[in-house]
């Protein structure tokens, strides 16, 4: 539809001084892959007769479709994160063989594709083990296999450190904005002028500001405006939300219910690790990268929706269920009509009529 992203070279190719872009992959097949994986994950979480709910929510969310049609690099990584998540669930349920296959395969390809994931995956595994989401015993085989498979990559990185660095800098741009440093200088200058130099050194230094900035970015990834409204525009121009607004109602209820359960609270907390790639982006929120967090949101929505459905004899639950369905159907119609009528004009308004894809 709007293929305006310049592709990103895969990490191993960069290290070998080759050019391999994932944009040449059959992107149209990705949605089918996601839906299958999502169905598999849902089967492990929800009752059999309700498995279609998360799949359906995923299907009607503009997020995946927009990014898939624009050949986003993170759609490719998303197709690797889903098997990892599925693998972890399998490992937790005792299915060691398939669990290890999914975890190792997903992690291996992801680490070879992105320098960020080369670091992100080991950290995530460590945190999952420490927080006892998966025990070290359950993860042992995956870790050993992964270590062996990643050895050649390690060797390449050591040999070609500068290429790794350049790939890493390309992916981690959180502190690349000079605005933050400028504002620190400005604050310190004003304080010094007013005779508060030492106070400024304590409270207005780059360590504190960077920490606050990181914290703010982290929180911004998970708020309703980011996930359910076009506050951050899909592909930089769209007015359609990543996930339809109507789903906010079951999301809120699902979250409310899950937060009451200590075990669910812990898993939800750990799952926020998936927002880190977006936190490390240059923009405050990168919807391209945040798609990795999408399954968590959809599972919470599904949980809320299932709660409504199961308690449908209760008036309040029924009202919320009906309200959700009305809003979702209404917005779906609006979204489809809007894509047909205005999205091209909007694209032109943001990027100009003569915008051309710049091939790297």
């Amino acid at each position, binding site marked *: 539809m709007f293929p305006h992203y310049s592709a990103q070279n895969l990490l191993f190719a960069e290290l070998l001084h080759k050019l391999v872009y994932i944009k040449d992959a059959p992107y149209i097949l990705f949605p089918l892959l996601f839906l299958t994986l999502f169905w598999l994950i849902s089967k492990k979480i929800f009752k059999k007769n309700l498995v279609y709910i998360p799949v359906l929510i995923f299907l009607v969310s503009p997020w995946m479709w927009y990014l898939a049609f624009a050949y986003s690099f993170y759609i490719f990584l998303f197709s690797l994160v889903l098997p990892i998540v599925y693998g972890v669930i399998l490992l937790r349920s005792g299915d060691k063989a398939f669990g290890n296959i999914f975890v190792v395969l997903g992690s291996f390809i992801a680490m070879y594709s992105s320098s960020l994931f080369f670091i992100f995956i080991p950290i995530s595994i460590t945190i999952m083990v420490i927080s006892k989401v998966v025990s070290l015993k359950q993860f042992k085989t995956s870790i050993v296999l992964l270590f062996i498979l990643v050895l050649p990559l390690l060797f390449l990185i050591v040999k070609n450190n500068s290429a790794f660095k350049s790939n890493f800098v390309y992916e981690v741009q959180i502190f690349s904005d000079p605005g933050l440093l400028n*504002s620190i200088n400005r604050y310190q200058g004003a304080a010094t002028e007013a005779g508060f130099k030492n106070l400024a050194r304590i409270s207005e230094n780059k360590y504190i500001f960077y920490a606050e900035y990181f914290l703010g970015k982290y929180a*911004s990834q998970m708020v309703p405006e980011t996930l359910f409204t076009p506050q951050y525009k899909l592909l930089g121009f769209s007015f359609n939300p990543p996930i339809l607004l109507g789903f906010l109602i079951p999301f809120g209820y699902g979250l409310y219910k899950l937060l*009451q359960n200590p075990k669910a609270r812990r898993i939800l907390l750990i799952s926020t690790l998936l927002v880190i790639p977006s936190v490390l982006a240059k923009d405050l929120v990168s919807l391209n990268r945040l798609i990795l967090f999408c399954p968590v949101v959809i599972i919470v929505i599904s949980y809320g929706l299932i709660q409504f459905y199961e308690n449908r004899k209760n008036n309040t639950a029924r009202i919320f269920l009906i309200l959700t369905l009305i809003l979702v159907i*209404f917005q779906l119609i609006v979204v489809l009509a809007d894509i047909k009528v205005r999205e091209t004009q909007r694209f032109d308004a943001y990027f100009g009529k003569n915008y051309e894809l710049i091939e790297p």
Partner: protein
Amino acid sequence: MNKKTLLLIITISLITLLGGFLRFYKITVNPPSLTGDEISFGYSAYSVLKTGRDEYGKFLPLVFKSVGDYKNPLPAYLMIPSIKLFGLTDFAVRFPNALIGTISIPVFFIFLLDIFKKKKVAVLGSLMLSVSAWHIFYSRFAYETLTASLFVLLGIWFFIKMLDGKLIWAFLSAFFFTLTMYTAFAPRLFIPIFLVCALIINLPKLKKDWRKAGVFISTCLILGLPMLYITLFQGAGTRLQMVLISNDIEFSRYVLLKYFNSIGDLPLLFFFWAKRYLSYFDPSFIFFNGLDATIPSSIGLGMLYVFEIPFFIAGIVAFIKNKIPHKSLFVIWGLAGILPDSLTNNLKHTGRLLHLFPVLILLSALGAIELYNLFTKIGKTYLKMIVASVSSLIVLAVLIHAFLIVSTDFPRDKGESFDEGWREAVQYVKANQDKYKEIVFDPARGVSAPNMISNPFLYVLFYMKYDPHIYQTEEKVTSMPSYESYYKFGKYVFRHIDWQQDKSEIGVLFVGSPWSLPEKDLEPGELIKKIYLTSGDAAFFIVSPK
């Protein structure tokens, strides 16, 4: 009185004193100048005090026309005793709001104690309010929504008391709710929505004693009727029409791709509004820079301090999992409280959300207590010491940053927004006006561009202590060919200055920004005085042709 009660009274008195100090200290120099609204309220109050009429000659008005924006009446009336006491000064204008901001602290304490019956929540909540940058900021200048926030708090508190108590609470609740409507625009939409939801939810309780609902609704209607009348027939609704979200530039330019003009555009407007509504939950807005007290996009101040992020999150979790009295009312309060501002085409504004302070600070206090309870469970002493030291250092660093922003960055970055410079300009004119036959003020000003943002005639009226009798009755010239905007009373003229033409006007004093009085075009001796902003940029030149 037992020892514990005495200790509690001493504690809350000290907290209130601290809050009062933070609200009153150097109140006339920070914010650096009275805003257009403050000046307008101040002179209207002075005019009513001296003549019983506003500057347009209207007797005890229920809406102040001001500069055509039809201001709410209560802020001006509340200033009257203060102006009587302290004279027509900057302090007199700011005194009522600072006092209300200070009074809010013990009121909030009693509210929390009464509803939650927990001293910890009440003391911590009032302490957080006392040092809240958000509340302090808006207490330090005449900002009507702050006054309204106290009335909202009292209205909701008495509403809760009405549900289980005597009939008098129904009257008091209705009284304060209605008073809110005469004080600020933001709560006008919030109050009806809150009340409809609250009455529906509490219908079973109200059914037991219909008299309460009767007294409540009839008091609201009787006291609210004049407001309804002035909204519909005396122009107070004008402001609402001007600021509706359908006129939003982003909406017409980038979403609808045309101006809003038909019912078919409503679906997109609805989703645009939803986006705006949810944007109020943006952490950057709540914790980092919502207060807009310094340069945009930097780490400044929000409605809550950055160190309150964990408190706030823990507070939400505690609110969800614990039994909270009247939980549903707090939820409605929080969610409906955002509605008025979200329906406007203005930028998000923490000032218009002040009626939410009890909800936000309550969540923060609940979270702090929750985290403290977790802290006490830490077994190892060294670990406890580390957590306590690190937390204290973070709190200290954030508070120092807040102090620096308010004391140094805010006056420097926002002087122009607060119309800094007019006071000094008018005071100079007042001292020297006898030497000139006419004094011309240019209403356009600004460092980066000349914007028509000021109402200089109000500054002249205020700082000259211009006799309201004379102003109401004397002849004024409101237009003049060849001038886009023109206003004249006495020897004061307010119009655009064109120096190429005006430099021949001998005996006239000109007050304008460097845009209308370029220094390079002035002859030696013509520039009499330069007035600067705190930032060091020139605000005004005072010039007389030679």
